C-alpha cells in the first residue's frame, strides 16, 4: 500500500509523489480496456438479468413490470422442472465419470514409459475440435441402423442400441461430451500430479507404504487445488451443455434432452419471452453459485493427515 501522502511534506518527496501518481495513471490505463469491457459486457449484464427477470418483454410491446410472476410460472412449469432434472442428472453423471476416467488415464500416463508423451497429445485432439462438427460425426457413428457403433456391438455379441431414443439420447450426448473433454481434465490432473514434490513419494517408499496408501494419503490430498478447479469449472461447464444437444437431438425426442440451456435459448429466441428466459437464467445462476460456494467449503474443510 502507498503511505498517506499528506504525511510527507518535504519538497524532494513532492516530485516522487507526482511520479507515483503518474504511475498509478499508467496502471489504470493498462487495465482499462479489459476491465472496462468486463464491466460493460459481463458484470452489468449479470446484474441486468436479475432486473429483466421481473419484467415481461417480447421486443414487440414495451417491457412491463410483473414482479415475481415469472418465478411463480417457473415453479409450476412441468417442462422447466423436467429440464432441471435432466440437467442435474447429466451433471451428476458427467463430472464424476469424466474425472474417474481421467484419473485412470493419468495413473497410466505418469509412469516412466517410452513414448508416453505422444499419448498426451493424442488425448487432447478431441478437446480442440469444433463441438458442432464432431457431434455430426458422432451422430453418424451412432446411427441406429447403419452406424458403425451398433455394428461393432453386434460383433461383440451385444444387442443393438437405439442411441437416439428418448431413453438413450441424453446418454449419447453424455458419451460425446465425455469423449470430447476427458483429455483436457486428464492433462490438468497430470500437471497437478507432476508438481507434487518427489520427496513425499520417496519417504513413503522408505516407510514401505502400499501403492493404495500412497494414493490416498499423498496423491489425492496434494491434488486438492487441482481437483477443486476441475470440479468448479466442470460443473459450471456441464450445466451449460448446448452445442451437442442442439446438433445431435435438438432437445428431443419429446423433451428428453431439453437441458436448461436449450430451454432458455428456445424461450428467449424462439418465443421471444425475454423475461421468462431471464428468470430461468437467474435460477441457474443461483444454483451454480450455491454449488460453487459449497465446493469451496467442502474442499477447505477436508484436511488430510499427511503425517
Amino acid at each position, binding site marked *: 500500500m502507498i503511505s498517506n501522502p499528506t504525511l510527507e511534506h518535504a519538497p524532494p518527496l513532492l516530485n516522487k509523489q507526482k511520479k507515483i501518481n503518474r504511475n498509478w495513471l499508467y496502471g489504470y490505463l493498462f487495465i482499462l480496456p479489459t476491465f472496462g*469491457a*468486463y464491466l460493460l459486457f459481463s458484470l452489468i449484464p449479470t446484474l441486468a438479468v436479475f432486473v429483466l427477470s421481473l419484467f415481461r418483454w417480447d421486443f414487440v410491446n414495451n417491457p412491463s413490470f410483473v414482479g415475481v410472476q415469472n418465478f411463480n410460472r417457473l415453479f409450476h412449469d412441468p417442462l422447466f422442472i423436467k429440464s432441471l432434472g435432466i440437467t442435474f442428472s447429466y451433471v451428476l453423471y458427467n463430472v464424476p465419470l469424466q474425472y474417474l476416467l481421467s484419473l485412470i488415464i493419468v495413473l497410466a500416463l505418469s509412469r516412466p514409459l517410452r513414448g508416453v508423451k505422444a499419448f498426451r497429445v493424442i488425448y487432447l485432439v478431441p478437446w*480442440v*475440435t469444433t463441438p458442432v462438427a464432431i457431434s455430426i460425426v458422432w451422430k453418424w457413428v451412432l446411427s441406429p441402423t447403419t452406424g458403425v457403433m451398433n455394428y461393432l456391438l453386434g460383433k461383440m455379441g451385444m444387442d443393438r442400441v437405439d442411441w437416439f431414443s428418448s431413453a438413450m439420447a441424453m446418454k449419447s450426448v453424455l458419451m460425446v461430451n465425455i469423449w470430447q473433454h476427458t483429455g483436457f481434465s486428464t492433462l490438468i490432473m497430470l500437471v497437478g500430479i507432476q508438481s507434487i514434490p518427489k520427496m513425499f513419494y520417496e519417504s513413503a517408499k522408505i516407510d514401505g507404504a502400499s501403492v493404495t496408501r500412497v494414493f490416498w494419503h499423498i496423491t489425492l490430498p496434494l491434488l486438492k487445488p487441482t481437483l477443486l478447479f476441475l470440479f468448479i469449472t466442470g460443473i459450471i461447464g456441464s450445466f451449460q451443455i448446448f452445442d451437442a444437444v442442439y446438433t445431435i437431438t435438438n432437445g428431443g425426442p419429446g423433451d428428453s434432452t431439453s437441458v436448461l440451456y436449450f430451454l432458455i435459448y428456445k424461450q428467449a429466441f424462439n418465443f421471444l419471452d425475454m423475461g421468462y428466459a431471464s428468470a430461468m437464467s437467474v435460477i441457474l445462476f443461483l444454483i451454480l453459485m450455491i454449488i460453487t460456494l459449497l465446493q469451496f467449503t467442502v474442499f477447505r474443510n477436508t484436511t488430510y493427515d499427511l503425517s
Partner: protein
Amino acid sequence: MKKVLDYGLTYMLLIFFAVISLFPFYWMLITSLKDRKRAFVYPPEWIPDQILLSNFSKVWNKIDFATYMSNTLFVTVILVAGQLMFCAMAAYGFSRMTFPGRDFIFVLLLGSMMIPQIVTMIPLYILMKSLGWIDTYKALIIPGMFGNAFGVFMLRQFFLGVPKEFEDAARIDGAGIVRTFVTIILPMAKSALVTLGVLTFVQSWNNFQWPLIIINSPEKQVISVALASLQGQFTADMTGMMAGALITLAPILIIFIVAQKYFVQSIQMSGFK
C-alpha cells in the same frame, strides 16, 4: 516378468484410449471418401476400395464454404489480435504496477470466470439490439476482443516470473513504461502469447451459440452455424455431411498438429501449482 506384464497392460490401456480418441476422425475421413451409396453398406467397409474427392466439391458447391470460412477467419483474427494485446496490457498492469485497488480489481476480474456465459446471454443480446449491432460482426467481435479473465490470469503468471532487472535496465536507459512494455516484455512473453493466441483461435472458430442468435443473414454466417444448417439438406447423404465436417475441422486440426506443444503448454500454464 511381473514388470513386463504390468507395462504391457499400461500400454494396452493407453492405446485403447488413443484409438477411442481418434476413431471418429478416421470414420469421418473414410466416409467422406466413399461413394454415396457405399456409405450405408452393412457391414461397413473399413477401408474404401476407391477414393472419391467428389464429395468435397459437392458440399463446397452446395453451401458456400469459402465465404463461411473467410467470415469466421475475419472474426477470429481480430479477436485473437485484440485478446493478445489487451490481455497482455492488463496482465502487465496487474503484475508490475502499483495503484490503489489493484488487487481488488484483479479478484473481481477473476470472479468473472465463475459467471456462466448463459447468464449474460440475454442482457448482452438486448444490449447489442439497442446498439443496432444485431446481424453485424461488431456483436461477434467487440464483446470478446478486450481480453478475458483467463488470458489475463495466464499472462500475469508469466510476467510474475520475469525478473525485474530487465525492466530496470531499460528504464535506466531512459525508456518509458510503454516502450519498456513493447520492446522488452512482449518479446520475452512470445511463447505465452502464442499459447493464448492458439487457444483464442480455437475458441473463436468453434463458437456456435452466440453467432447462432446474432447473425441472421446467411451470407454473413460463421462456419459452425452453416455446418449445423447443412444437416437439414444432407439428411440422406452421410458422405457429404462428413466432407462438410472435415472441411470445418481441417483448420483446427492443422493448427493443433503444428502448435500441439502450445496447447499442452496452455494447460500447464493454467497455474495450478
